[in-house]
């Protein structure tokens, strides 16, 4: 059973999952997850490996459609609409719900084209507008000064941290409401991690962010709400969700207590 905290209902929710379950072929990744995600706040998802955190995240923008034999049941409401409704326009959904991956995955294009490509596919082609958006998003991730003189060189020549910031810029350039992040810092060095972390914190003012992290200190530093996933009998469950302060200071569930004090997980 999930432990909910009453304070949690203060904020308007951007996304709400209802009895969401996901299975790959025979294996159930997670089951019956009902999680409200507050708008324009940062929600951290923590929990041991294999508890279904990444799988959960990919439901929120229906990236699950790309995985064979992946079945989802339950509902995900975004602005009151179930995104698994067959009438939903997936392209438009994914424009509203951006995603940042664990491994930086810039396309093998130039820095410039990495940003132009999604814009063009969404019908934004006016040159001056495109250039404005590109400068804006690169500035937002603190990359503009570093790359403005080599926009036409390959994105693959950037450092790992720069690549990850470029990927964030690529997501931001479409002005999403929600940004999903799957351990976005785990492939980076501590300095780059710090830079990205500050960015996420900043973005949290205007965006709904769901971030999966193994780093409890990071969850504590940047998030407003924290959720614990736990694998029970090999199936992921949502154990507790609470405002971050309460989650760490007054965890209710014994598993959470053990996890945050480092006794388990």
């Amino acid at each position, binding site marked *: 059973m999930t432990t909910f905290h009453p304070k949690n209902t203060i904020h308007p929710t951007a996304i709400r999952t209802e009895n969401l379950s996901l299975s790959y072929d025979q294996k159930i990744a997670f089951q019956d997850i009902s999680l409200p995600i507050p708008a324009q706040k940062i929600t951290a998802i923590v929990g041991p490996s294999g508890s279904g955190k990444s799988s959960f995240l990919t439901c929120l*923008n229906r*990236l699950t*459609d*790309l995985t*064979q034999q992946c079945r989802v049941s339950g509902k995900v409401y975004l602005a009151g609409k179930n995104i698994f409704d067959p009438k939903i326009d*997936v*392209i*438009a*959904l*994914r*424009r509203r719900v*951006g*995603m940042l*991956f664990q*491994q930086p*995955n810039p*396309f*093998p*294009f*130039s820095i*410039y*084209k990495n940003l132009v*490509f*999604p814009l063009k*596919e*969404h019908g934004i082609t006016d040159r001056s507008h495109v250039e404005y958006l590109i400068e804006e998003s690169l500035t937002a991730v603190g990359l503009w000064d570093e790359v403005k003189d080599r926009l*036409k060189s*390959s994105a693959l020549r950037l450092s790992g941290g720069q690549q990850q910031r470029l*990927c964030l810029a*690529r*997501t931001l350039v*479409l002005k999403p409401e929600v940004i999903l992040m799957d351990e976005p810092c785990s492939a980076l060095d501590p300095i780059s991690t710090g830079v990205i972390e500050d960015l996420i914190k900043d973005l949290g003012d205007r965006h709904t962010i769901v971030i999966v992290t193994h780093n409890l200190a990071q969850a504590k530093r940047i998030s407003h709400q924290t959720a614990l996933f736990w694998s029970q009998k090999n199936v992921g469950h949502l154990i507790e969700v609470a405002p971050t302060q309460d989650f760490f200071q007054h965890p209710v569930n014994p598993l959470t207590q053990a996890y945050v004090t480092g006794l388990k997980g």
Partner: protein
Amino acid sequence: MVKQKWGDRLGTGFIWAIPLTITAIFLWIIGDVFWHGLGQINWQFLFTAPIDAGRSGGIAPILVSTAWILLICMGVSLPLGIGTAVLLVEFSDIKTGFGQLIRRSLDTLAGVPSIVFGLFGNALFVKVFGLGFSILSGGLTLACMVLPLLIRSTEEGLRAVPQSYRLGAASLGISQTKTLWHLILPAAMPGFVAGFVLGIGRAIAETAALIFTSGYVDRMPSSWLDSGRSLSIHIYDLAMNISNGNANAYGTATVLITLLLMINALTSWIGATWTNHHFKF
């Protein structure tokens, strides 16, 4: 210590010896052909018809027939091959049981001796479709033969494209067709180039599959429905059946190898240019 060093050296020597030997054999064959053949080649050889069953004269009609056969073969097999590979790799609905079956069949087909394709082409294109011994029959038969090669290496090329590109593009709301065209296909280009080179190499070297389909008439073809002799059949005929045909056999082989090298270089260049066009700016 000393012993280990000797072992290392022996190992290194061995590792070097293998590719060196292979390269040497390859160069030797090419060298031999060019050594004997280059002397035969002049404008007249390239632009006139064979005389006296090919003992003298040129290979103009044979070049034309070969070009048509290859064009038909690649023109048919390339779109079919790339299309099938894209379906197999990118569209998950048929990735499962049916896809497996197709893949198995292709691997089997790729290993079937070309003479079998020749007989099949003869039965189907020459007789059932009534195309007779013709360039069209030959080209279509070769297309069937290279199709498995083409599909399999295109598939490898597509599979070598990191899944993170597909996920990244999808997460930006980019449609699957746009992703395919702008990202996946250019990134899979090395696979297409490899497939094309393998396919055309097999097609241009083929004799058995053509004898029963395009025939071996050495006159200039006036349409796709005429019989036409390919370079490889010409070489075979000159070397095996015609006394004093060796000199021109070497000349023809030189042309064939040069042609193959040129096609391969051109293919790589076109592939690289297209990828750059998509990936650069």
